[in-house]
C-alpha cells in the first residue's frame, strides 16, 4: 500500500522535475516581456507571503483549538481595531502593486514612432501578414498550419513543433520597433506570441495596435487565443526575428516573387504548371475539409462534384465567395488570380474529374471583372 501510494505521488511529481515542463511564465526576449514577468513575480510573491501568513494562522487554529483536545470556545465576535487594520493594510498593499502595474501598462501602450508597420489579419483559420511600406511592390502572404493531418490524427509521429509550425512565418527585423496593426476578416481572433509578450484581439472591422522590439534573433511561437470556431486550436503564429540585413534581403526576394506572380497572371500557363501549382494550393487550402483524394469530409466531395464538373463561373463563385451558413469560406481574398486559376484547373481535372478544362489566370481576371 505504501509503495503504491509513493508510486502515485512520484507519478504526479515527476512532471514538475522534468526539464521540458515549464511551470512559470517566460520572461521572453523583449524589454516589455521582462517587465511583465517581473510584475507577475512581484504580485505572485506578495500573494504567497499573505497566503502563508493567513493559512499559518488557520492551520494553527485547526491544530490548537480543537474540541477533541478539550479546547473551550471563547465568545469574542468583533474588534473594530482589527477590522479597520485588515481593511486599510490590504488597501495600501494594493496601491504598492498599482504603481509598477501602471508604468508597465503605459509602456505597452506606447505605439508611437514605429519603423515598420505590419497589418495582421485573422482568418478562419490562418493569419495574413501584409507589410505596409510606402514604396515598392506590396508584400503579403498567408501563414497556415504546417503540421500534417497524419500527425494530428496520430498516424504519424508528432514533430518537435507539433501545432506550432507554419508554412510561412512572419519575418521581422531585430532591434527595430515594429508596429502590428491587427484586425480580422471573419470572427474575432487573438494574436499572441508569449516570448515577445504581445497579445491583441483581432476584431473584424476594427484595427488594434501593438508593438515590439525584438533584440535577439530567433524563432518565436504562439497561437490564436480567442475561440474562433472549429479549428481555433490549429492556427499558430510563428515569428522569425532576423538581423536587418537578412530582413532586407528576404524582403527583396519577396518583392521579386510578387512581381513575378503579377507577370505570371498575364501569361498563359501550361497545363502541367497549373496542375502542379493547383495541387499545392489545394493541399494547403482545401484538403483539410475536402480530403486528400477529394473524397470530402467536413466539406462535400470534390471528386465527381456537380459544382466542380459543371459551369466554370459558378464553380469559381463558390470558391471565391464561399457558401454562407457552412464551413466553406470565401477564398476570393486569399488566392491571387494565378492560384485561383490553378486550383480551379486542378479540381476540374484531378480525382478522376477529367473535364479537360484549363483555366488561365486571365480567365479568372476576366470573370472577376464581369
Amino acid at each position, binding site marked *: 500500500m505504501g509503495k503504491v501510494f509513493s508510486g502515485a505521488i512520484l507519478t504526479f511529481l*515527476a*512532471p514538475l522535475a522534468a526539464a*521540458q*515542463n*515549464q511551470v512559470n*511564465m517566460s520572461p521572453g526576449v523583449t524589454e516589455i516581456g521582462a517587465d511583465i514577468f517581473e510584475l*507577475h513575480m512581484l*504580485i505572485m510573491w506578495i500573494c504567497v507571503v499573505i*497566503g502563508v501568513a*493567513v*493559512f499559518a*494562522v*488557520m492551520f494553527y487554529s*485547526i491544530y490548537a*483549538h*480543537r474540541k477533541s483536545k478539550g*479546547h473551550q*470556545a*471563547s*465568545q469574542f*465576535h*468583533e474588534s473594530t481595531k482589527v*477590522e479597520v487594520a*485588515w*481593511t486599510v493594510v*490590504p488597501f495600501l498593499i*494594493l496601491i504598492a*502593486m*498599482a504603481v509598477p*502595474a501602471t508604468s508597465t*501598462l*503605459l*509602456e*505597452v501602450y506606447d505605439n508611437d514612432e514605429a519603423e515598420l508597420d505590419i497589418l495582421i489579419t485573422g482568418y478562419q483559420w490562418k493569419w495574413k501578414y501584409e507589410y505596409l511600406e510606402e514604396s515598392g511592390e506590396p508584400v503579403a502572404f498567408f501563414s497556415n498550419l504546417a503540421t500534417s493531418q497524419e500527425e*494530428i490524427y*496520430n498516424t504519424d509521429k508528432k514533430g518537435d513543433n507539433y*501545432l506550432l509550425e507554419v508554412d510561412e512565418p512572419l519575418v521581422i527585423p531585430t532591434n527595430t520597433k515594429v508596429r502590428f496593426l491587427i484586425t480580422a476578416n*471573419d470572427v*474575432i481572433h*487573438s494574436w*499572441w506570441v508569449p516570448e515577445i*509578450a*504581445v497579445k*491583441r484581439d483581432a*476584431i*473584424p*472591422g*476594427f484595427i*488594434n*495596435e501593438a508593438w515590439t522590439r525584438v533584440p535577439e534573433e530567433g524563432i518565436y511561437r504562439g*497561437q*490564436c*487565443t*480567442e*475561440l474562433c*470556431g*472549429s479549428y*481555433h*486550436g*490549429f492556427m499558430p503564429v510563428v515569428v522569425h526575428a532576423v538581423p536587418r540585413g537578412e530582413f532586407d534581403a528576404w524582403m527583396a526576394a519577396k518583392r521579386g516573387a510578387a512581381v513575378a506572380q503579377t507577370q505570371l497572371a498575364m501569361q498563359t500557363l501550361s497545363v502541367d504548371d497549373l496542375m502542379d501549382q493547383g495541387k499545392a494550393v489545394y493541399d494547403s487550402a482545401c484538403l483539410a475539409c475536402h480530403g486528400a483524394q477529394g473524397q470530402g469530409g467536413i466539406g462535400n466531395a470534390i471528386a465527381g462534384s456537380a459544382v466542380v464538373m459543371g459551369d466554370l463561373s459558378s464553380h469559381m463563385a463558390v470558391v471565391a465567395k464561399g457558401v454562407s451558413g457552412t464551413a466553406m469560406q470565401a477564398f476570393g481574398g486569399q488566392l491571387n488570380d494565378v492560384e485561383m486559376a490553378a486550383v480551379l484547373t486542378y479540381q476540374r481535372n484531378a480525382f478522376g474529374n477529367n473535364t479537360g478544362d484549363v483555366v488561365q489566370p486571365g480567365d479568372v481576371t476576366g470573370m472577376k471583372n464581369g
Partner: protein
Amino acid sequence: MGAHHHGPAQGISRWLFTTNHKDIGTMYLWFSFAMFLLGGFFAMVIRAELFQPGMQLVEPGFFNQMTTLHGLVMVFGAIMPSFVGLANWLIPMMIGAPDMALPRMNNWSFWILPPAFLMLASTLFMEGGAPAFGWTFYAPLSTTYAAPSVTFFIFAIHILGVSSIMGSINIIATVMNMRAPGMTYMKMPLFVWTWLITAFLLVAVMPVLAGAVTMMLMDIHFGTSFFSAAGGGDPVLFQHIFWFFGHPEVYIIILPAFGVVSQIIPAFSRKPLFGYASMVYATASIAFLSFIVWAHHMYTVGMPIAGELFFMYATMLIAVPTGVKVFNWISTMWRGALSFETPMLFCIGFLILFTLGGFTGLMLSIAPADFQYHDTYFVVAHFHYVMVAGAVFSMTAAIYYWLPKWCGRMYSEAMGKTHFWISFIGFNITFFPQHFVGLAGMPRRIPDYALQFADFNMMSSIGAFIYGASQLLFLYNVIATIVAGKPVSDEKVWDGAEGLEWTVPTPAPYHTFEEPPAVPKPAGTI
C-alpha cells in the same frame, strides 16, 4: 378543510402543482444535481480528449460544443439553481416565515427550467450541432458564424433569465415582507443577507443578458447589425454587454456560497461569526464593485489606456472586501472549539482553495500581466478555483449540513469524509497543473495542444476523472441517507448550530412557522 393542516398531495401532482417552498427547494436541488452530472459528463469528454496530444475521440467542432455546453450547464443549470433550491428551503425557515411570499410564481420559476435545458441539450442532435462558441458566446462567432441551433440557445437563455428574475423577486419579497417579528435586517443570518444582495444583482443584470441575446437574435434573423462592423455595429459592444451581466453573475454564484460558509464555520467552531456587520458591508461592497469592473475580462480588446487603468484599479479594490471576509472566517475559527465533520471539512477546503482563486484573481486584475494570462489555462485554473472549490464545495457543505434537518436522517460521516478527501485531492490534481500550462502558454478552448503541455494535461485529466467519480459517491451517500440513514430527532442536529431553522422539529415538517416564532437573540451572539 378549515383549520386543518394539510400535507402534500399524492403522486406526481404533488410535484407539478406544489407551492410548498420545501418541495420546490427539493426539486431545484435534484434538478441542479442532475445538471451537475450532465455538465460533469461534458467535462469528462473534454478531459478525455485532452488526455494526450493529437485528436483521439472527438472532432474539433464537437469539442467546442462540449466546452460551450459544459460552461452553460454548470453555470445556469447546476450552480445557480442549486443555490435557489437552498434559498427556497432555508430562507423561510431562517427568517421565521411560513413559506415564500409568492408561492405560485415559485412553482412556475422552477418548472420552466427543465424544458429550457431539455431544449438546450436537444441542440446536440440538431443539424450543425449544438452551440460551439463558448459559454461567453462572443459575436460574430455566435451570430453570423453560428450553427442554426443558436436560435434555440437564445430561447433557452431567455427562459433561464425569466426563471432567475422570478426567483429573485420572490426572495426579495420574502425577505422584505415575511420576517418574523423581531427579525430585523441586522439579525438575519448571513445566508439570508447574501441571498438578498444576490437577488438584487440578478434583477439588475439578467435583463441585460436578455438584451444581449435579443440583439443576437435580431442580427441573425432580422437583418440588424448590432455586432457587425459592416453594418455600423461593433463586435466589442457584445462583450461589454455580456460582461456587464457576466461579472455580477460570478458574484451571483459566489455570494450565496459565502453565506453558506458563514453559517457553517461558526457552527463547527462553536463560536459566533466574527464581524457580522462587516460581513454584511463587505458583501454589499462586493456587489457594488461587481458593476464597475466588467471590462477586466476585455483587457486585450484594444481599450483606451484610461479605460484599462480604471478597470484595473476598480478590480484590484475587490480584494479588500474579499480579504475582510476571509479574515473574518479565520477569526471565527480562532480560539473556537473546532470539530471537523464533513460540512466543516468542505468549508475549510473552500477557504483554502477559494483564497488561492482570489490570489490568481488579483494577479489577473493587473492589466499588463493579463496580456500574458488572458485566455490561457491560467484563467481556466483561476475560475475553477473560485467556481468549483468556491461555489460547488460550499454547496456540498450545505447539503451535508442541512440534509439531516430536511430528512431526519444522518448521512454516513465516513463516506462524507472520504468524499471530501477524494474531491479535494482530485480537484487539485485537475486544476493546479493548469496554472503551469497556462503560464507556459497553453491557450484555453483548444482540442489539441503542443507537446510541451502533454504531462500536465494528462495529470489534469486523471485528476478530473477522480474528482468526477467522487461525485457519484456523494450521490450514493445522499440517497442512502434519505432511504436508510440513521434517524435523528434532535431539533439541533449539530450542537453548535444556531438559527431558527434548528428550532423546528427534525425532520422539518411540511409546514413550518405557521405562527411566527419569537426571535430570541441577535445573530452574532449565542
